[in-house]
């Protein structure tokens, strides 16, 4: 999930969400960065309104401790 977190950090700091920046964040955290995943992530997020997608998570009521995992 670190790739997605990296994207979210860049989104918060307002930096461009590109392969270089993502790679830099991941490497700074000591991750073995796979180029293709970075590429795929950038592609997947290309037309996505991150703000909105994240807001959707917040909209979900904080359900009870269903099942637990």
């Amino acid at each position: 999930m670190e790739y997605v977190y990296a994207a979210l950090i860049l989104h918060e700091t307002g930096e461009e969400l590109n392969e270089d920046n993502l790679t830099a964040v991941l490497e700074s955290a000591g991750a073995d960065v796979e180029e293709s995943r970075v590429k795929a992530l950038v592609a997947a997020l290309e037309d996505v309104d991150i703000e909105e997608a994240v807001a959707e998570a917040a909209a979900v009521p904080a359900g009870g401790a269903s099942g637990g995992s």
Partner: protein
Amino acid sequence: MSAERKTKTIPDWKREEVDDIVGMLDSYESVGIVNIAGIPSRQLQDMRRELHGSAELRVSRNTLLKRALAEADLDVLSEHVHGQVGIIGTNDNPFGLFKTLEASKTPAPIGAGEIAPNDIVIPEGDTGVDPGPFVGDLQQAGAAARIMDGSIQVTEDSTVLEAGEEVSQVLANVLTELGIEPKEVGLDLRGVYSDGVVFSPEELEIDVDEYRADIESAVAGARNLSVNAVYPTAQTAGILLGKASGEAKALGIHAAIESPDLADDLVAKADAQLRALAVAIDDEEALPEELRD
């Protein structure tokens, strides 16, 4: 002047009693006047014992009480000294004293001719009384009663007398037979003085549930602020982590990010969409068997 003259004329025992009461008034943080009318002396003894350690109750002649109040600069309480009263002193605060006194009240039977202090209700249920004239008494008293399964039953909660009305002989008998004690007997606080302020009983009645609700709401509000402002505390760090991971997951699923952590969810989402679309399709023939209703 006149007070001086009085001082001279009262007998020694009264003088001592007043001094004693003044000493008591001075030794407590909060002092109040309580109504003790109608409390049998044995019960009063019990109450005094029960209060021991948290409050002191003192009974005396009203004239002496008033004199003591005046000498202790507590004239403000004098208006409450009438009828059968006592002085109560405590180091608890007035709210605490009120609570203690309320809690010490005990139920008592009510007699014919007395005025109901509150609504009197005969509850639904089996009276345990064998069929007989009692059913008529119940009905006469205003309760919905009949004979069922071999005993007299009250078929619904019945308010047989409203607050302020007088208890009839029939009702008094019925209540006695049923063991219903509608009165609350105890020390009734008329007023308390503490730190320069006189509190009336109405002011002292606190709703603990409301305070509890306020605590919960304050805690929830603080937690909201901590999370929404992203100021992690030991209590909210977990929530923030959960929130952040939830956001990542939402984003991942929304954007169909190909991550091993999301693969299950993406497959599940596709399947859910498939089923949702199938529901929108009317023609069964257009659907595979698994998706037909």
